């Protein structure tokens, strides 16, 4: 892809619109045909979509049930806890964008996203207020990060490390009982986007180390460990996620000693984690295979132990190589969490189904599903955008 720097700037660089159009739209007769067909299709699709969104669709069902879509049956008076950790996350995102995003002009736009959301969607006054606070928090985080990037690096990383426990702890409650300050909120009340988010985050956090271990196991010199890893990976990858979720819901209770019960949400989390780990293992293995043998030998020759070699030399390089693939896998996991609706959990899709059973909103499938599709799309796209930023920052993906 190396381009030769011309001695004189080529004349065509100053092409006008017409020339551009001739080159890119009407290069030949079939090119022109394709252009016209494409343009017509675009017009048709966009105009009918716009007509439906603006005139036909009845969006009241979304407005009235916004709370259900977002947090399910989570008690409203405890919702401040969710806003709290959301603020914490946004603050970290702001910090990270400032430190690692190196002045990307999209950073600020991204941080203003909550404010956009607040007005683009029919939220109540309370959530709107919180969303604005979030946007401000993100900007403050960004400002602080920009002011002292080097000093903050460590604490931001520490912040990310503790973020999952913080999220889980705040969501489930600080005290063991259902009274007192920040009381316990049972998982059956977690729902909507909140549940989808938690399933995703927990799935990612736990499947990642398991996946790395499985990948290492698959490349182990110990045959039994290797066989086990291969068997696990191939078995899990060979079956649909939905069957694993069914197994987790219907069979897991059977596998446990009598008297042990596992929370249904936890069961789904276990199922998703075990499923995702097998896929991650294969991705990580790809990275491991790309590391030259000399790296192992050099580490060994320096006297590093097997574990030290893996932790300091091999994994950092291997994981960096596969970041784009890993993020792709995480996005897939996020989208796949919707399958828990089929086993009766109130995730975004499950909530959509129960909302559609409300007597006053029967028959509004298209509105409801369009809305949750939008949520899925925005979040997935956001994840892949962030990963592209990360790739650029870490210098991978450019060949």
């Amino acid at each position: 892809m190396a381009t030769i720097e011309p001695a004189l700037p080529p004349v065509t660089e100053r092409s006008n619109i017409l020339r551009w159009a001739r080159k890119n739209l009407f290069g030949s007769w079939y090119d022109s045909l394709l252009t016209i067909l494409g343009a017509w299709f675009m017009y048709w699709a966009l105009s009918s979509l716009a007509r439906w969104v603006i005139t036909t669709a009845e969006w009241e069902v979304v407005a009235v049930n916004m709370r259900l879509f977002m947090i399910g049956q989570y008690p409203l008076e405890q919702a401040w806890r969710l806003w709290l950790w959301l603020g914490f996350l946004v603050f970290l995102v702001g910090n990270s964008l400032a430190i690692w995003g190196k002045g990307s002009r999209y950073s600020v736009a991204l941080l203003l996203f909550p404010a956009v959301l607040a007005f683009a969607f029919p939220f109540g006054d309370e959530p709107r207020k919180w969303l604005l606070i979030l946007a401000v928090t993100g900007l403050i985080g960004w400002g602080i990060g920009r002011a002292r990037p080097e000093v903050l690096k460590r604490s931001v990383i520490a912040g990310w490390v503790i973020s999952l426990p913080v999220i889980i702890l705040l969501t489930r409650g600080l005290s063991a009982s259902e009274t007192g300050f920040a009381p316990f909120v049972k998982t059956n009340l977690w729902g909507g986007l909140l549940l989808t988010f938690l399933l995703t985050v927990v799935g990612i956090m736990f499947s990642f180390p398991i996946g790395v271990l499985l990948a290492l196991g698959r490349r182990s010199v110990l045959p039994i460990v290797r066989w086990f890893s291969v068997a696990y990976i191939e078995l899990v990858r060979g079956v649909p996620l939905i069957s694993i979720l069914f197994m987790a819901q219907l069979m897991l209770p059977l596998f446990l000693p009598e008297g042990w019960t596992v929370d249904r949400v936890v069961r789904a989390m276990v199922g998703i984690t075990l499923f995702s780990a097998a896929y991650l293992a294969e991705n990580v293995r790809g990275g491991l295979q790309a590391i030259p043998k000399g790296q192992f030998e050099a580490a060994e020759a320096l006297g590093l132990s097997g574990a030290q070699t893996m932790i300091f030399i091999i994994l950092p390089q291997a994981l960096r190589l596969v970041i784009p693939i890993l993020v792709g896998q995480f996005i897939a996991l996020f989208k796949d969490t919707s399958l828990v609706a089929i086993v009766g959990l109130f995730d975004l899709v499950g909530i959509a189904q129960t909302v559609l059973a409300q007597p006053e909103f029967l028959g509004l499938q298209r509105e409801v599903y369009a809305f949750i599709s939008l949520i899925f799309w925005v979040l997935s796209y956001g994840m892949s955008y962030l990963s592209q930023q990360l790739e650029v920052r870490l210098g991978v993906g450019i060949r």
Partner: protein
Amino acid sequence: MRKSYSILAIGAILAIVLTACGTAAPAPAPETVTKVETVVVEVTSSAPVVVAPTGYGVTLKAVMERGNLICGVNSQVPGFGYVDANGNFAGIDVDYCRALAAAIFGDPTKVEFRPVTAAERFTALQSGEIDILSRNTTWSLVRDTELGGNFVHTTFYDGQGMMVPKDSGIATLQDLEGGTVCVQTGTTTELNLADVMASLGVTYTPAVFEDADATFAAYAEGRCDAVTTDKSGLVSRRSVLPDPANHVILDVTMSKEPLGPMVRHGDDQWFDIAQWTVFALFSGEEFGITSANVDDMRASATAPEVRRMLGLEGDLGLKLGLTNDFAYNVIKMVGNYEEVYNRNLGPDTPTYIPRGYNSLYTDGGLLYSPPFR
């Protein structure tokens, strides 16, 4: 070398296509029939025999220790079990759970609703994941025996009906010859439909759906000529179809559908508690005790049965393992049957269903409570 596999693959595909065309009309193999017969015997012999999983009083003890009741409910049936926009469960089945919690704890909020799918409801009950199943479940012999549950007294008498568009001209089930019927899977409804149609000799195509929403959405879009489910469901669903007036419910009852709560085999105390909570709701209506006047009644009641029921006399509640005022709590906190019914299925709701069989025996219905003595 490589291309030889492509040609082999093409050969294989052709072979498949040819065999597929060739098997357009396979003769039914006679041996399948005999096979079926032999196994029927086998199935009955290997039918799961449910051993008593719990002993007397175990469930109540567990519930008391836990501090709340776990109630398996539906989350997708308007009027019976769904989540309203405030995130609260609502419906007649849901209110029964609240009544039970009121009877046990004197607090109708001490109940955890666990939405269960049709597929997992019995497993969930057997495995102890839920204490009671209150999810529009039809009482049948098989469920009473093989599935290891006991049905508490029926809380809603239903019957399977058939709804068709008015302009279709269909008046009887026979008119559905060659038509398509929308039905929900995994339910007795699906089996009843097959039974009734087979006995009438009507051929039809079922369009089977995983949940009620999909079933009625499909019907509303004209995917089927008719839709079948419990009549209550038909009535409530009709009210929210785009053009309710254009749909009629055929005057046939394809089955009896007594819907009621279900508990596990083996804990008779728990069964009694669940049972008498239902009767407390019935008797409340019979004696005219409502949540509004229950305190006055308790202060002024003279009729011995009312006094016994409200815990002023005797120790009926203690006999159940509860407090004496359990029925008072039920009515005070949840209301009597009429209140519960009207709240969820009454004339002021979008899901209005006339009382019909679900009236007191004094009004010609089937609601009849044994005496509180």
